[in-house]
């Protein structure tokens, strides 16, 4: 019994407090720097929109990153188990296993995966698992200017993320798909969360997959 309690399951999650986000993109660049993300690809970035009519206009931000879902479709659909889920909930891609079929990318409802054009494997945000294992926070969380990003163990009632989650209304992206995403947003703007708002869907430029 003692052992069990000691091994209380950790479930990491990310919380984005958009009241504190300033849209500075330092998370985007921190991630590029930390994980050697090549040009043209992003693991995390901040979507910035402007909404309203002059003079009642506001800017809204939405940092996007892998949701490290509890029931990820990418994991379900990966034919070779290259995508796997760590016990602490982080969804990982095994670089030696990945065959680059890109089916996980097509499956991901958040479009946060990409093929690394240099290494030709699929990569994505994994909450800097190498840093987390060393007891550090993910690079984006560390550098966030407004401390809008909170990362931690939601199974630990004393963690900051648990406390903030307990006292604030949060939303998630596309929870209706049953993926159980683990990136929570406080005060996210509905229009920023809507991928089809504010763009001409017929004129979007798409990138080559790699």
């Amino acid at each position, binding site marked *: 019994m003692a052992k069990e309690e000691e091994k209380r399951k950790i479930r990491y999650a990310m919380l984005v407090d958009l009241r504190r986000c300033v849209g500075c*993109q330092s998370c985007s660049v921190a991630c590029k720097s930390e994980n050697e993300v090549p040009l*043209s690809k*992003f693991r995390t*970035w*901040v*979507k*910035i*929109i*402007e*909404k*309203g*009519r002059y003079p009642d*206009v506001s*800017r809204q931000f939405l940092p*996007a990153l892998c949701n490290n879902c509890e029931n990820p*479709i990418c994991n*379900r*659909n*990966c*034919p*070779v*188990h290259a995508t796997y889920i760590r016990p602490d909930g982080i969804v990982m891609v095994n670089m030696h*296993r*990945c*065959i*680059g*079929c*890109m*089916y996980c*990318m*097509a*499956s*991901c*409802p*958040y*479009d*946060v995966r990409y*093929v690394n054009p240099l290494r*030709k*494997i*699929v990569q994505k945000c994994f909450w800097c698992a190498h840093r987390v294992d060393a007891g550090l926070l993910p690079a984006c969380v560390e550098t966030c200017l407004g401390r809008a990003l909170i990362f931690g163990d939601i199974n630990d009632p004393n963690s900051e993320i648990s406390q903030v989650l307990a006292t604030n209304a949060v939303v998630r992206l*596309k929870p209706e*798909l049953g*993926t159980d995403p683990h990136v929570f947003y406080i005060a996210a703007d509905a*229009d920023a969360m*809507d*991928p*089809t*708002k*504010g*763009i001409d*869907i*017929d004129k*979007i*430029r*798409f*990138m*080559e*997959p*790699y």
Partner: protein
Amino acid sequence: MDVGSQVTVLYNSPHQIPLGLLIAQYFYLTGLSAGSFVISVVAILGRKVEYKPLGKIGAILAPLCLILAPMNLLSDMAQPLRFWHLMTYLPGYINFKSPITYGVILLTAYPISATIYAYFVLTGNMKWSKVFAIIGIPLAISVHGYTGFILALGKGRALWNTALMPTLFIVSAMVSGIAMMILIAIVRNMFFMKDKTVEEREKDRQLILGLGKFLGGAIIADLFLLFNDILVLLTSSKEAWETAHLLLWGKFAFEFIGVELFFGSIIPLFLVFYPKTAKTFKWLSIASVLVMIGIYAMRFTVVVGGQSVPLH
């Protein structure tokens, strides 16, 4: 321009389309293979002796297409040399929940069975060809049906995530398979039956014209499914509506409305049922060609169009 909400996206990361033309082509080729195999089996198992030659054509085409199809898959993979990762059938190494895994199993089993089937059909061993026909039918249907599953399990994409997708794929496979059979049969009739008697050639001709009716029926079934699909897209979620918009009057309107529906379905339908055109090889072959192009456009719109609605 809608007045209620004024939203301008000032910054977003680039969108991407992971599955491209090669995948569409792969789906197309498996469709052709499955379609021709099913027709061939119907001909072989059927009681009418005159259908037998068609059986032979189908039996050759089915494995042929299926050899070409995985080439597309391999060249689409970012790590083609790791294809063997898919074949280490050990639990923990491959994921039996993934439709691609079904695909790998099917893509191994089906060409083998289709080749053996073709061998027996060509050597005239009816008993064994029937056995392999029966083995091959579920495989052929699955090999194309699974491609529908691949898409249907992409939950985030409104165009794909529907239970209709496998059925739609199988029916459209039939359509394209029949069309290809007709074309080959016409070529055979016109150029390779010079040594046959006039009656024999006429019998063959009637057979081909009869296939045209089959084609018409399959097209109707296909259109019916498409109609259902579009109707649901138009009336369900916002993403679905955006997808319908793309197909009906947006970016893919030409491919979908023009090529797939009008040239690929309506005109061939007219050609195979209108008495004057239904009776000539010329019009029938035109109809078949149009159908094949139409189905190709369909694969393209489904695969690429389905991913053209941004997800972030």
